């Protein structure tokens, strides 16, 4: 891009130019950066339990984490739950949300909250015993630890859960209830993206060469045909592949990955066309065998296009789930679980998965973008 900037046919000043680019920048900031940032923040933020059980939280802060907390904690828990009951539908809503969040960590707590709210209210014994009687889950230190962690302002719970782990009361790590399932989905999503990138890398080359070496008219035609499956969309491709292959990962992969091929083929074709036929022809004329011509001449010439294509295919493949939902419903991808969590309003899980998908995308961009630059590295 260096030499292009020397041309400024409109003689625009720097300020005018910046002002022209600003509206789009603002739109991206407002429509992409801010919302995604908020989603990523929700992966560590804890919003459900603290509003519901504020007094319990304050007491638990003094707890040292060994054994069970003292009676004060039980009493404030009962008091908080009573307050929620008294608050009518809003209180019931808050209790429901807190219960769901706690259940995601320790399933027993999901029923423990409402059961304790019911049970503790009706007894006359001291609050502490009443709570224990209402639900034996309160006799386990692990549950109190989970409650304390969830009642803070931020925690690593969702991030850990996304990779299938949870933190124990003692601070160690263990598999969460959904552990293997979560990790399987994540590895499937990542694996699919890597596989798709490699597949496109290999398959796109002949097509890219054809487009690069064809006359401008034919190249336009070929490019349009190659773009067709991409523009038709993943849903159309998935439905189109469904009668041809049985339901399963292969069909989902083909529907998702093959459509991304123009994202690889066109940048590579552009690079090759830009480089021109002289160098490979000269090399061949000088006696270099075809494989060497490919390896030492064409491939480096296509470096920018290959890098750009890899980034595009990889990031798109990471975030796609429509084909997998249709053609391989038994093996959900990480992106599919993200979508389901978002639809259900579980922002902690959605945010954590977003972090897990964004990290590989960032790594890929960091590795590949320098290769896509103008100057040779």
């Amino acid at each position: 891009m260096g030499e292009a900037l020397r041309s400024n046919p409109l003689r625009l000043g720097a300020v005018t130019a910046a002002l022209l680019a600003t509206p789009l920048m603002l739109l991206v900031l407002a429509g992409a950066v801010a919302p995604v940032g908020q989603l990523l923040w929700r992966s560590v933020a804890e919003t459900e339990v603290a509003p519901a059980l504020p007094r319990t939280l304050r007491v638990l802060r003094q707890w040292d984490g060994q054994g069970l907390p003292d009676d004060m904690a039980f009493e404030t828990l009962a008091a908080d739950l009573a307050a929620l009951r008294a608050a009518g539908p809003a209180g019931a809503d808050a209790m429901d949300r807190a219960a769901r969040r706690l259940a995601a960590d320790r399933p027993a707590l999901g029923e423990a909250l409402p059961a304790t709210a019911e049970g503790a209210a009706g007894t006359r014994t001291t609050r502490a015993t009443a709570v224990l009687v209402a639900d034996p889950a309160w006799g386990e230190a692990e549950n109190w630890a989970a409650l304390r962690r969830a009642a803070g302002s931020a925690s690593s719970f969702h991030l850990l859960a996304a990779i299938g782990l949870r933190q124990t009361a003692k601070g160690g790590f263990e598999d969460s209830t959904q552990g293997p399932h979560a990790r399987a989905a994540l590895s499937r999503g990542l694996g699919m993206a890597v596989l798709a990138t490699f597949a496109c890398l290999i398959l796109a080359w002949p097509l890219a060469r054809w487009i690069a070496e064809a006359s401008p008219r034919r190249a336009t035609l070929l490019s349009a045909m190659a773009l067709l499956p991409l523009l038709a969309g993943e849903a159309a491709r998935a439905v189109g592949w469904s009668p041809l292959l049985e339901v399963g990962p292969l069909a989902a992969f083909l529907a998702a990955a093959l459509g991304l091929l123009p994202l690889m083929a066109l940048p590579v074709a552009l690079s090759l066309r830009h480089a021109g036929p002289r160098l490979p022809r000269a090399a061949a004329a000088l006696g270099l065998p075809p494989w060497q011509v490919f390896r030492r001449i064409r491939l480096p010439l296509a470096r920018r296009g290959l890098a750009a294509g890899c980034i595009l295919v990889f990031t798109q493949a990471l975030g796609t789930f429509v084909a997998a939902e249709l053609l391989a419903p038994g093996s959900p991808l990480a992106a599919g679980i993200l979508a389901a969590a978002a639809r259900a309003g579980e922002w902690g899980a959605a945010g954590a998965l977003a972090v897990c998908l964004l990290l590989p995308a960032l790594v890929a961009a960091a590795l590949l973008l320098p290769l896509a630059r103008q100057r040779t590295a």
Partner: protein
Amino acid sequence: MSRLAALLLLLLLLLPLLVLAAMGGTGSGAEALRDSLLTALPAALAATLFGTAAGIGLQVRFPGRSLAVALIALPLLLPPAIPGAALLLLAEGTGFGAGRPGTVLWHALLGAPLVAAITWAALRRIDSALFRAAAACGVPPKLAIRRILRPRLAPAMLLGAALTFALSMGESTLAVMLGAGTLPSSVLSGAARMAAWLWPLLIMAAVSLAVLFRSREPVVVAGG
């Protein structure tokens, strides 16, 4: 040999669309088509407006230009499920972001960098000597801009708009997540199959014809 491989690959790429065409539609999908058009047209318009301005502005090296390029290209580099979830979160908080408005916004953000790149490439080809020659001939600057710029800028803007339109008609991930009711969602449920392959075909055919039959060099794909 390599040509044969490329041809087979191209056929493989087009195979699902041919199957879709052979399957025939179960419903007319008119409502989905209408929703798709109501999404794609505003998105293409917005993308063209914002993208052309950016494409013109990015000609000049100004402080922060690299940041601008990175920001503008960002939507293309995000794994699609992430902005979908982010917009749903935004909708929960502010009421805006789900359904058609959110989808229009995101499709515009996807198309704008394309328009910017295409217009940038088109402007880059203009020889500054043309403007100097026009000034030397005594042409007022505004007329020079109109005569030199417009014939090159207009096709670029149209191509960008058409690509954004086509992209928006087929974009599946966000449309499904945000519930925009566009063609991809109804294709999944079985209706509107014909529209799903017909529209991209028509658009690409129109774009190709337009590009092929221009007297000048084609704008992006086949140029140097």
